[in-house]
């Protein structure tokens, strides 16, 4: 009898051992805010909220499965995952079916998949593995190879065109390269070249992409078209005031002025109802999340786990910053969801893969040291 309890206890400890509770609590808190906001955004409907809760359950299981894997195991996924992702991206380029003007989906008969999503994880994994492998012999040329590994998928995704995902994948890859020790001179050089090339890039943008940027400067030039989203979401945020209009009382939301209100623009819904206070809380939660991620990265024992943890953590930051920036009108509108808040199963699974990886790194830290 006593032994049975002991076994159960040990079994339970085994189950929860890989979980990092600070990280879990922070994400659960953000997700709770997200569920409540989805409920409000879909005009009190429960359908989406319940579906999202289901997605969260699935994502948490995936997180737990990944967290149990030792980082060495994760490392062995780097090359196959990257190659699969790359091949699928090429397949999309060649045979993809355009949905709403963009070619992002690969039809598989019964379903369709969005290979760029795989790259959000595969990219930092691959680059972290690469720098880990050449840790002892790192030369400038390794940075060139890394940039190439990054540039090809980035180009393919940007070409789809899916600027939002391209930025996230590009960002994740860049963070690895940055943490691996890309010399400051090069970084400064890149910034200088980027600034110089801006007019050139401007010329390469599609007409509608240029319009989005121009609209950012003066949204009122196109009230029926591209400027509409920005105008309506800033009104929602601004009218929320310091304390918000109260839960379920957002007029902008409930009068259907906010487009994509349970997905990309969910922050406008939240902000209208909870005001500056709510925004502060949410930004604080994201800061905690990123802080915890950075702590895990700083304590990580191997080069691979350090780079990966650092890149994934900054990836969360990029998601959150780009989304809130675009909804509040300081960044152009690109399709980036708000992490752990926006409705959508695929994005959530990808995010929790990242959380699972962080937990794996954290929980296996001691084992490596021993």
């Amino acid at each position, binding site marked *: 009898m006593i032994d049975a309890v002991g076994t159960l206890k040990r079994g339970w400890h085994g189950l929860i051992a890989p979980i990092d509770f600070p990280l879990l609590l922070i994400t659960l808190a953000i997700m709770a805010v997200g569920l409540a906001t989805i409920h409000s955004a*879909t005009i009190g*409907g429960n*359908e989406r909220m319940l579906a999202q809760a289901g997605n969260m359950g699935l994502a948490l299981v995936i997180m737990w499965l990944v967290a149990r894997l030792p980082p060495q195991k994760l490392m062995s996924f780097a090359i196959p995952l990257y190659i699969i992702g790359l091949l699928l991206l090429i397949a999309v380029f060649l045979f993809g079916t*355009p949905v*709403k003007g963009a070619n992002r989906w690969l039809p598989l008969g019964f379903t369709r998949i969005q290979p760029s999503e795989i790259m959000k994880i595969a990219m930092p994994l691959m680059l972290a593995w690469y720098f880990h492998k050449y*840790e*002892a*012999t*790192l*030369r*400038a040329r390794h940075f060139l190879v890394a940039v190439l590994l990054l540039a090809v998928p980035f180009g393919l995704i940007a070409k789809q065109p899916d600027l939002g995902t391209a930025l996230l994948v590009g960002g994740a890859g860049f*963070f690895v390269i*940055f*943490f691996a*020790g890309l*010399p400051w001179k090069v970084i400064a050089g890149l910034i200088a070249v980027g600034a110089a090339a801006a007019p050139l890039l401007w010329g390469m943008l*599609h*007409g*509608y992409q240029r319009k989005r940027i121009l609209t950012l400067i003066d949204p009122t030039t*196109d009230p*029926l*078209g591209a400027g509409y989203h920005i105008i*309506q979401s*800033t*009104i*929602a*945020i*601004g*009218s929320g*005031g*310091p304390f918000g209009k109260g839960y379920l009382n957002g*007029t902008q939301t*409930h*009068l259907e*002025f906010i*487009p994509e209100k349970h997905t990309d623009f969910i922050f406008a819904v939240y*902000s209208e109802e909870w*005001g*500056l206070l709510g*925004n*502060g809380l949410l*930004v604080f939660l994201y*800061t905690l999340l*990123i*802080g915890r991620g*950075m702590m895990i*990265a*700083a304590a990580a024992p191997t*080069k691979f786990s*350090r*780079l990966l943890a*650092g890149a994934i953590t*900054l990836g969360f*930051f990029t998601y959150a*910053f780009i989304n*809130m*920036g675009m909804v*509040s*009108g*300081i960044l152009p509108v690109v399709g980036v969801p708000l992490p752990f808040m926006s409705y959508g199963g695929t994005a959530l699974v990808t995010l929790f893969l990242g959380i699972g990886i962080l937990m794996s790194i954290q929980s296996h830290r001691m084992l490596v040291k021993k």
Partner: protein
Amino acid sequence: MGDFHNPESDLDRFRFRLGIAALVVLLAFGTLVGRFVWLQVLQHDFYRTRAEDNRIALIPIVPNRGVITDRNGVVLARNYSAYTLEITPSLAGDLDATIDGLAELIDIQPKDRKRFKRLLDEAKNFESVPIRTRLTDAEVAIFAAQRYRFPGVEVRARLFRQYPLGPIGSHAIGYIGRITDRDLQWIEEADRQANYKGTDHIGKTGLEQHYEFELHGETGYEEVEIDAGGRALRSLKRIPPVSGNNLQLTLDSRLQEITERAFGDRKGALVAIDPATGGILALVSNPTYDPNLFVDGITPENWKELNEHPDKPMINRTINGAYPPGSTFKPFMALAALEMGKRTPQQAISDPGYFNFGNHTFRDDKKGGHGSVDMYRSIVHSCDTYYYILANDMGIDNIARFMGQLGFGQRTGVDLGRDDSGESRGVLPSQEWKRKRFKKPEQQKWYAGETISIGIGQGYNAYTPIQLAQATAAVANRGVMFRPHLVNQIIDAKTGEKRPVEPEPMRDLKLKPQNVDVIRRAMVGVNKEGTGARAFAGAPYEAAGKTGTAQVFSLKGADYKAHAIKKELRDHALFIAYAPADKPRIALAVLVENGGFGAQSAAPIARMVLDYYLLGKLPAGAAKEDVAAVEDDHEE
């Protein structure tokens, strides 16, 4: 960069960089919070007022699409208003239950459900999607009484496109259909998204597509005050839409109808052009289809039937069918010879009935030959040997250069489809073409023997009927060429201002008048005493013409016996003509697929078209095949 691999300094550097990253994060989030403070505290009053004013919804009002009329004002495409039953998915809840409920009140067929599913996949969540179109008044009344049971379902009045003449002229007019992703991309590239708010149909082919942005009009909008539940209380301001511009065509719908009837159930194409302007008078591709089928979204069954029909009614043969021109190529060859000084009209050959080149014998259709043949007789009797020798003397690149000037092997740029990429180029053979066309070096070389049959319009030659008509019109108009076009003028819906299309000639070939006259006399001779004489017997006007036959498959020297060969392998029949010969008002090219000799099936159609256009004479029925012409007509 030498200090990459000291583990200690590596860890230190990593942590240092992590610190920098943390600073960037704090800075960025700080900026965001700053922005929030600006919006929510400092500008709060401003935005609160805006949100309160935001009880105003902008509802787009779709403009009337422009009307298409023929040259005489006969309406070819117009709009009518009808009620549709529409569901907004985001408001309706369980869609299947909603539709089942509606089906108890209103007739909803499985095909309606299927279309709804398809449209739903394409639509955004907050857009309403039609489940039924063209409701009767009774159905509208029944639904209105039960409306409260169906949130997110409403009856809307929408404009529908209608093509009153049905299948007549459909390859020219085209049709509209629901906007798909590909169309959205087009709209985005043209930067017209705002103007297409509320619009759900767009031109898919033909004139409807080419002139989409003329026909569409400017979307208006209504500012409506709404209550907290989102229901409209009253209209505050209305910016009316501006109707799309109307198109007046050069096409003559009666001529079009008569010509299509003349084809009967034969496959083929005809393009008739006013040589003085390039305006297209008739553009026939037979068989045709009913564009009205596409307006509501074509049913899969209808689509399958049209697409898989062996006669391929969806293909516009005038711009997408490329055929060898056969003997209709000869007048152009003769003109090239005169212009380049390779022949004089009087220069004659003695035709033995064949031409030997290397160890190959090129045969004439007439055994024993035509005897002494000058340029006039070479066209009137369609002597092959004359053109074998001529082609050999000129060389392939000289031929290609001259024929290219006449527009052969190039897109005409006719105003059909989104741009000219939908038009086939055909094949204007030249050394350069062959080099580009083939991969293997031994295939890339042009052999002098291949030039010989180019002279009689066979070999690699392949041109679209519209190219052939354009070249005929160019000769009829003495070398001054116009781009073939279907729209005469665009009539501004707002101001009534009329904008003519293409009043300027495309180019002047600077042909010598005496050379053009030689060709004209010979082509008149064709219809007086040559291969076209039977078809044009008793015509009260003088018509210049030329028959042609294009081989579908080669007979290797055996005699051609039409009845012994399966229909789809029979030769294509061609005819080109312009009339009146001295002052041409119409130039045309006819092609009848598998029609046998040009004189037999193509020339009678041309006669009918000219009779109607020049004399107003109505034909009795489909142009009869002139079987007797075959016996007479060994010269073809």
